[in-house]
């Protein structure tokens, strides 16, 4: 049953989520798109776009939206989708929440523990690979178009990718602004040619 699987999957994503929102995007992408095939690459990319533009932690937003989409794609109607949305966001916070409540005092006292610090510094490095893999897995013809089918769309996609990449790397441009501008470019370019 999808609800049970959704609960289990998001519990797992929650407790293995180290290193912020982008690492979590990598985990959700892998579980939802690659493993369970609950949604397409395109749908997932759209979810990330919307999640970055609305208020709140990106992890919560992506989990909520992915929960909704997975249930609706499984053939249920929108209200079951709403249940899936709540279930996914509940599950994703459940284990870290319990973990922190139980260990709060202990962790605060031992936050300079050598073993813990070694584990976390190693995780921080490995997570770079996780995020890179998520970006590579999302760089598909679904998202960029293909050169043989439509050279124009492919060219525009590559241009948007490079410009956004450079602007966010060098100028630390706001992701919301970049998404809005890319949307405007898409609307104009594809609307008129």
């Amino acid at each position, binding site marked *: 049953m999808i609800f049970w699987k959704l609960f289990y999957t998001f519990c797992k994503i929650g407790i*293995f989520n*180290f290193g*912020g*929102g*982008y690492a*979590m995007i*990598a*985990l959700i992408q*892998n579980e939802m798109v*690659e493993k369970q095939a609950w949604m397409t690459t*395109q749908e997932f990319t759209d979810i990330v776009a919307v999640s*970055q*533009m609305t*208020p709140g*932690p*990106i992890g919560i*937003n992506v989990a*909520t939206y992915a929960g*909704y989409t997975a249930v609706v794609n499984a053939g249920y109607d*929108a209200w079951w*989708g*709403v249940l899936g*949305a709540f279930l996914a966001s509940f599950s994703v*916070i459940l284990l*870290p929440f319990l973990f*922190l*409540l139980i260990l709060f005092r202990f962790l*605060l006292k031992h*936050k300079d523990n050598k073993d813990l*610090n070694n*584990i976390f*510094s*190693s*995780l*921080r*490095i*490995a997570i*770079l*690979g*996780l995020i*890179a*893999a998520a*970006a*590579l897995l*999302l760089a598909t013809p679904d*998202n*960029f*178009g293909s050169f043989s089918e439509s050279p124009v769309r492919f060219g525009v*996609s*590559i241009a948007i990718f490079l410009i*956004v*990449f450079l602007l*966010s*790397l060098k100028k630390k441009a706001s992701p*919301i602004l*970049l*998404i809005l501008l*890319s949307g405007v470019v*898409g609307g104009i370019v594809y*609307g008129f040619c």
Partner: protein
Amino acid sequence: MAGYLELFWSFFKIGSFTLGGGFAMIPLMEKELVQKKQWLSKEEFLDILSLSQAMPGIFAVNMATCIGYRLRKITGATVSVLGNILMPILTIILLAMFFQYFRDNTIISHIFMGIRPCVVALIAAPVFTLAKNAGLCWQNCWIPLLSAALIWLFGVSPITIILIAGVGGFLYGRIKDRKEAEI
């Protein structure tokens, strides 16, 4: 003493009015909880901040959990987390229902065709911005390269990578300590 309703309201404001993810909430949290309400000292706030970053889970939710617990135990943690995520969840649900019906609209589909490559770039860029903070250098750059290749080309689960990296970091630290002790 922080009342439950007050706690809920503070985190509701923090969760509802910050665009740009959890880390964008830090200044707002500090202003509301440390300066305005004076529920925590600056040092306590910074301790909880570094703990929330290191522990598994969503950073902003971890902050709400720890601060809520520190002020009013389990009920405090629960109302703080609920306050923090309520508005974001409702916003997403409304948008999800909206887009379900308008996804096939020509204009919206054109807009999203422009947005998708942008999203991929926004996921690729943090790999490089986070690299400096993570302490990436020539000696350890094989770790992210190998992890990315295993996930991308061989379908290895990111969770497996996290487990191996965690155990690896632990063992590496222990072995380094022992070697230093011998010298």
